[in-house]
């Protein structure tokens, strides 16, 4: 593997506690999924996958059309749509809105998209507090770590880690019973929900025909984030689109089962715009921030753009023998596992973290469990070949660049050039002859030269060189005056 951080891998592999945590968590998720999609529980499973794949393919191929439809429906329901090219633009928008509304506290529900653009850091630099409210994400925010897994973000931490962390950061007694730890988090976060000015969420799906954001969760933090504060901002990648609300049946049947083995997660919220006339609660303002951040680049390749079908269920991570050994934090970006290995190089450029597509045994488990049938191994192979050719190009290009730089330097230093050139002509007779190496070839070469009646041209490296011609030709003429 080119440039892989193998030392970091070794460290993870040598940490037996961590290995056990990764192994048992992924094992449990594998088992839950397997029983949820078993033939007797979900006889339609394979058809659902085909259907989901077709819907995603269709939507990604007609993204422009559905984005426009989505936008006009969000606006029709009283919301606003903001298109952002980069993460900085997302932060700028949220900051300017927060400033306008005098907001000082933002609550957030789990969102990989905001992780992707380092939203919290960008906002907190401007002295606005942002609080993660999903229990796992809250723990990670306190620990200043990024998610270890798309679905189970704090998978690598034990109850003892959490106990220490809470006591250090929240000033509570060291509590090691997860149930009590949850109560501590609930109480701390309840305060934040009730005082927050803005709620920021991601989106699991964007429904074009409804202008709606769909959020899938178990804890209720996304519901609180979108119900308690007066402003709701959803930040979503443009690939989250599906055409119709009715298509949701297909995806919701797959997402929960693939992620945690649940037929439906505890809460599924279908949100379209701010609260309507007569409603007692709900946000007064609703913004949908649509993020590109490199996604449109992926659209160009008809094969690789299927990477955008991903619904972030995490099943490929759980089933990947590489992820299960090296864990989440050894991947360079927030998206880890097989899906991370195919999208990271496409977002960041193929030569940065070039080892990623090679971090796979190509066993095919990821493709087998992917609910939207992304051909991950095929894309890994394609990316491998792209890495290899890019490296070759880069190698060649590097040498060429170096050669030309030396040449340019020489040409702008005439004194040195002249002395090197005259040295060359003086040394030329004693230089080894350059030419065909083997005896046969030499014989052929000599014969050819003799036949032409010429002596070997290699002796002819000029004893005078062209650099001196102008002086001789122009003898008697002053270079200062030039031709008159």
């Amino acid at each position, binding site marked *: 593997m080119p440039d892989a951080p193998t030392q970091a891998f070794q460290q993870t592999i040598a940490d037996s506690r961590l290995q056990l945590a990764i192994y048992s968590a992924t094992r449990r998720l594998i088992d839950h999924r397997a029983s949820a999609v078993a033939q007797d529980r979900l006889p339609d499973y394979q058809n659902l996958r085909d259907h989901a794949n077709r819907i995603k393919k269709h939507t990604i191929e007609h993204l422009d059309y559905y984005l426009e439809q989505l936008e006009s429906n969000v606006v029709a329901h009283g919301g606003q749509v903001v298109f952002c090219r980069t993460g900085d633009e997302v932060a700028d928008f949220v900051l300017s809105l927060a400033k306008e509304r005098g907001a000082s506290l933002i609550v957030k529900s789990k969102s990989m998209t905001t992780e992707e653009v380092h939203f919290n850091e960008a906002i907190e630099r401007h002295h606005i507090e942002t609080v993660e409210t999903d229990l796992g994400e809250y723990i990670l925010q306190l620990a200043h770590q990024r998610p270890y897994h798309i679905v189970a973000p704090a998978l690598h931490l034990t109850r003892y880690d959490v106990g220490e962390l809470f006591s250090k950061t929240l000033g509570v007694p060291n509590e090691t019973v997860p149930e009590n730890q949850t109560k501590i988090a609930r109480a701390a976060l309840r305060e934040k929900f009730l005082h927050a000015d803005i709620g920021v969420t991601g989106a699991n799906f964007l429904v074009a025909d409804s202008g709606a954001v769909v959020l899938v969760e178990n804890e209720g933090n996304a519901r609180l984030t979108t119900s308690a504060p007066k402003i709701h901002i959803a930040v979503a990648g443009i690939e989250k689109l599906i055409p119709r609300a009715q298509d949701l049946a297909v995806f919701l049947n797959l997402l929960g089962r693939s992620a945690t083995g649940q037929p*439906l997660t505890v809460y599924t919220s*279908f949100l379209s715009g701010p609260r309507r006339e007569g409603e007692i609660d709900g946000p007064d303002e609703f913004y949908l921030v649509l993020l590109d951040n490199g996604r449109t680049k992926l659209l160009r390749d008809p094969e690789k753009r299927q990477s955008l079908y991903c619904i972030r269920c995490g099943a490929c991570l759980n089933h990947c023998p590489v992820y299960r050994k090296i864990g989440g934090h050894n991947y360079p970006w927030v998206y880890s596992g097989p899906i991370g290995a195919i999208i990271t190089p496409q977002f960041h450029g193929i030569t940065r973290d070039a080892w990623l597509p090679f971090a796979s045994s190509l066993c095919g488990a990821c493709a087998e469990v992917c609910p939207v049938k992304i051909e991950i191994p095929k894309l890994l192979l394609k990316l491998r070949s792209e890495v290899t050719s890019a490296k070759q190009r880069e190698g060649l290009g590097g040498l060429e660049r170096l050669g030309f730089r030396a040449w340019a330097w020489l040409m702008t230093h005439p004194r040195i050039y002249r002395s090197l050139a005259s040295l060359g002509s003086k040394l030329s007779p004693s230089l080894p002859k350059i030419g065909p190496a083997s005896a046969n070839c030499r014989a052929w070469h000599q014969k050819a030269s003799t036949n032409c009646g010429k002596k070997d041209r290699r002796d002819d490296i000029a004893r005078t060189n062209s650099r001196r011609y102008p002086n001789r030709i122009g003898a008697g003429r002053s270079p200062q005056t030039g031709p008159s």
Partner: protein
Amino acid sequence: MDRNLYTQLFGQNLEKLAGKSFVVQTPDQVAGCLVDLLSGKRAVASNAPFLDDCGLTRLPEVRTGFRDREELRQACIAADIGITSADYALAETGTMVMLSSPQEARLISLLPPIHLALIPRSRLLANLDELLATIPKPAGQTSSMVLITGPSRTADIEQILIRGVHGPGEVYAVIVENA
């Protein structure tokens, strides 16, 4: 799926998730079956007419008729139990479907530690597919449709299942057969 089995299936599936379901025949039997659950608790109820039909809003421990956001919020923070109706329920998953409206506020089923929903039998559907076939465009009717499938839960610490994180840790449903 046999429509006659919806009540039973809904109850079974909700109980698999550690919810609890009751079945009564007529609206006037509802209050009677909830005496134990409500006793000694502060309750807030939504403005759904069905709760009136069931006689729940006349109980002394129930506060209802909210029109003001701040008042509703404070009442929900203090309450032990939130009582709502449900617009639909899904038998296959034990799911309650809530469409927010002037009759149904969002926080009543969310802030109190217990959520109780009264559901007319006529509102039971088979599953998600039937729900989305019945209301293909939820956005046309409401700004927020929430599917609630059991009590709030997490498994974020060592994959250990814990109920009642941010939403209610206890969920009760009463199906009223003749409604």
